[in-house]
């Protein structure tokens, strides 16, 4: 979750949704995101909404945190299900909406460092989600973890409590790169975590990598990719390092202590990643994500990219239901105070116009391997599709069958394509 919150209109104190959005709930798959805003130390490149123990004072300690999240889940129930109690837990109804969508299809614990919470705490939150909305039998439940915070025992504990997928922040296998990123884990630890996770019974294990760190060479990057693949994950995410304003890394770049990664280098690294991962049998399904088969894709993230609904619980968490997006106050203390006062923790929201929804659909859909139907593009933009195909940014075969799918070169210029298609 990025540090900067967008501007928006004020959100009502009771969290109530606009009527059209409330009515639309249930029309799309539904997920729950739980933000865990704690880290042991803060990494120099990170602008996420997270706090070290010393940064937190009063009202929002780690021990009390699960109870706070549960309070927000109660609010979520009131907001989403108040008008329609009979449909709770996905019982059939006559409304014409497929009520199975009101069950929770995916849960994602992100951070911060969710594994700073004990497996029991995570298990309790998950139980609360099930009691509140009903967890689908095949629900995907992902927990993000920093390698230094898990053990074979804690992983077994998470699995036993219903977590189905682990995602480890590996970033790199190269010591000098990890040092630049302020990552505290030893090289080799993430791969070991992945193996422990397998032993604990996790079918789905993902590793996150970062490329383009100052000082990283092409060979360093290959070494990291090879090391990741050696642990046999069924999913890899690879992100270009973005020097975000306000981070220690940005300050170092500004002072000229380290060189900012340049776009051409990042493009080269992306192509290396794509070559190596594809050769190992992982297929790209979103610009920065590769999976071993469709079943290994992160369904929770797919929900973000395909217009699904989700409730984001926790400070700074974003939510989307039926065309309304909102986001919570950032600081855990302010978040705790809102909930203690019986008010919604939402800081602001935006009710999307039809044009904005169309723009998001194109902007997000074009990043996927499945692409977009040609019919999603309308108006003057539809006249540019031929030209984009001719510039080799859209796949001609897919285009002939009525879909807009980026080529490898097109993935690197996805924002430019999105601008041309909207």
């Amino acid at each position, binding site marked *: 979750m*990025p540090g900067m919150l*967008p501007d*928006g209109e004020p959100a009502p104190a009771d969290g109530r949704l606009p009527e059209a959005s409330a009515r639309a709930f249930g029309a799309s798959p539904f997920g729950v995101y739980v933000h865990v805003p704690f880290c042991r130390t803060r990494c120099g490149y990170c602008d996420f909404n997270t706090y070290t123990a010393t940064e937190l004072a009063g009202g929002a300690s780690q021990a009390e945190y699960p109870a706070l999240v549960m309070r927000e889940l109660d609010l979520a129930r009131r907001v989403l299900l108040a008008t329609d109690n009979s449909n709770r837990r996905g019982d059939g109804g006559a409304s014409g909406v497929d009520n199975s969508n009101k069950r929770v299809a995916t849960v994602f614990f992100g951070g911060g460092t969710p594994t700073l919470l004990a497996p029991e705490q995570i298990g309790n939150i998950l139980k609360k989600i099930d009691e509140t909305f009903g967890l689908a039998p095949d629900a995907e439940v992902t927990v993000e973890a920093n390698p230094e915070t898990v053990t074979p025992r804690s992983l077994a504990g998470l699995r036993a409590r219903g977590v189905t997928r682990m995602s480890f922040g590996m970033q790199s296998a190269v010591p000098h790169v990890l040092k630049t990123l302020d990552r505290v884990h030893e090289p080799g630890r993430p791969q070991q975590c992945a193996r422990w996770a397998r032993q604990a019974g996790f079918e789905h294990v993902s590793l996150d990598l970062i490329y383009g760190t100052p000082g990283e060479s092409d060979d360093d990057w290959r070494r990291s990719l090879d090391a990741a693949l050696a642990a046999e994950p069924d999913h890899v995410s690879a992100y270009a390092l*973005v020097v975000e304003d306000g981070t220690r890394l940005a300050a170092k770049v500004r002072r000229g202590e380290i060189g900012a990664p340049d776009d051409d280098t990042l*493009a080269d690294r992306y192509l290396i990643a794509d070559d190596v991962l594809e050769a190992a049998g992982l297929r790209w399904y979103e610009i920065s994500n590769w999976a071993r088969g469709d079943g290994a894709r992160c369904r929770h993230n797919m929900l*973000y990219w395909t217009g699904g609904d989700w409730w984001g619980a926790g400070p700074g968490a974003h939510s989307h239901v039926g065309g309304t997006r909102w*986001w919570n106050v950032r600081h855990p203390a302010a978040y705790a105070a809102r909930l203690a006062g019986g008010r919604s923790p939402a800081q602001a929201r935006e009710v999307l116009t039809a044009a904005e929804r169309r723009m998001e659909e194109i902007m997000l859909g074009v*990043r996927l391997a499945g692409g977009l139907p040609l019919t999603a593009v309308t108006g003057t933009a539809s006249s540019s599709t031929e030209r984009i195909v001719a510039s080799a940014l859209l796949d001609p075969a897919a285009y002939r069958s009525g879909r807009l799918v980026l080529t490898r070169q097109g993935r690197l*210029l996805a924002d430019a394509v999105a601008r041309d298609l909207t």
Partner: protein
Amino acid sequence: MSDPAQPAAVGRRAPAPSRTDQAVIRNFCIIAHIDHGKSTLADRMLQLTGVVKARQMRAQYLDRMDIERERGITIKSQAVRLPWEKDGQHYVLNLIDTPGHVDFTYEVSRSLAACEGAILLVDAAQGIEAQTLANLYLALDADLTIIPVLNKIDLPAAQPERYAEEIAGIIGTSGPDDVLRVSAKTGDGVEDLLNAIVDQVPPPHGDPDAASRALIFDSVYDTYRGVVTYVRMVDGRLSSRERTLMMSTGAVHETLEVGVISPEPIPCEGLVAGEVGYVISGVKDVRQARVGDTMTSSGHPAQEPLAGYQHPRPMVFSGLYPLDGDEYPELREALDKLRLNDAALFYEPETSTALGFGFRCGFLGLLHMEIVRERLEREFGLSLISTTPNVIYRVEMESGREIRVTNPAEFPSGNTPGSPGDGSLKANTGGKIAKVFEPVVKATLIAPSEFIGAIMELCQSRRGVLGGMDYLSPERVEIRYTLPLAEIIFDFFDQLKSRTRGYASLDYEPDGEQQANLVKVDILLQGQPVDAFSQIVHSDSAREYGLAMTAKLRELIPRQQFEVPIQAAVGSRVIARENIRAIRKDVLAKCYGGDISRKRKLLEKQKEGKKRMKTIGRVDVPQEAFVAALSTSRQPDARR
């Protein structure tokens, strides 16, 4: 006790306008460099003669426009009637305030023609400057009595002895002791100066009974009154009840009001020979009452106009475009309004593929250009892009046809004789170029002698031809060069100032034209010429211009999805080339739930930005790139 030797009309009371005897009139102006204290001296005179009370006094009373006040320079001259009593005798002193800049030399010459005397005002800490010297020579040519005055004698850095010597040497007739010393700031010596004007400046000697002839030395548009025309009556009498005739155009106008300024307008019955005042005739546009023209009575017109009338000729041209294309109508309206008060401003619509709709504007010089631009932006709230200024070229084709080029993009593409090429690019005009002529100026530079080398080096590099050199004093030298005007309107002033640590001053006057080996350098993006960047340069400098411009554009134009060659070409010959490599990455790696709003807004913003770009061929160029490329170190600085 009465003195029978005194003229009859001269009494013990101040003479009234329209019946002032020439014998008590003294018409004079002040010649000075910017900052040498002309306006402050004028202020002191207004105070001492009692026409402005001390508490009404605002600094630089005569400089009315905000820009004039802020820049401390006078753009438009005015005339003020000052009563002065000396030895029991009432006099009328008409102070004609002249513009102080090279661009307005013609207006200066008309102001001088309205006077019999001139105060040569020199800063006692700085000595005479080239501009002042040029105007002094104009005054001497016009046979004016010169009263040399050193100002700012109260300054610790003042060196009155040294500069009195210098001035005496330049004027030649007076000794250093004849140079008056004043402090316009404190008022010290100003009374003596007013007395010296009475004693030394001869009275006018026009023919009061002849047909009326009035010299127009200024014309100002006033929103409420229409055009106010300032005149010096040379012969005869102009009554407020008569219609007037402009002798250059033959146009007849009603007379609404005649008066004098002292320092606010005071209407009167008329003006008689020797007097200075104003005429309001319901004219709405200063071009109908041009500086230098002769105004006469339509009932009894004079036979011959006064000598010296010239039609103003623009010397420097530039394209002016609204930053926001939607403001084109506002720009047109603003120019129309400015022209009411600026007979020298020339403009016509022009279209640029790069900049859209705008105007090709002609100016008397760089200061004039800067002032017009500043007024458009300040008074009319417009944001403008101006193209690099250029001069006017005369092109003779082999066919005998002659073309006048005020916009480099319109320079014919035919080959100049002796240049290589197959002549395939004869496109727009047909035929080959036989000869190209460019305007030249005679430049006078004054500087401490230690900078002679630096100045000569600069002038030589600008195709200058040395005309001569004279020592004004052992430390200061006057250098004369003939230079192409085009070489001066680039960054010449800046260079001169930086090479002489600000000590050199410059003046120039038109000196005809010369044939030169000039070529047009086109700048092409992906093979498409960008008209706003075309430039006419000497063939020796073509490569330098091409290299500089292509390198700059490479920095300014964002990378596109394809490679963009930037070329500089003379005709079909490419003389410089740069490449903008294709962009390879334009994507944000991460886009999760919390990123979506931010990313959508970013895309919307980028799309907005793209809409504001100009498309040259397939290349999107942000407007800022044009602005940055055009506002280079070559941007003129007319303040010297």
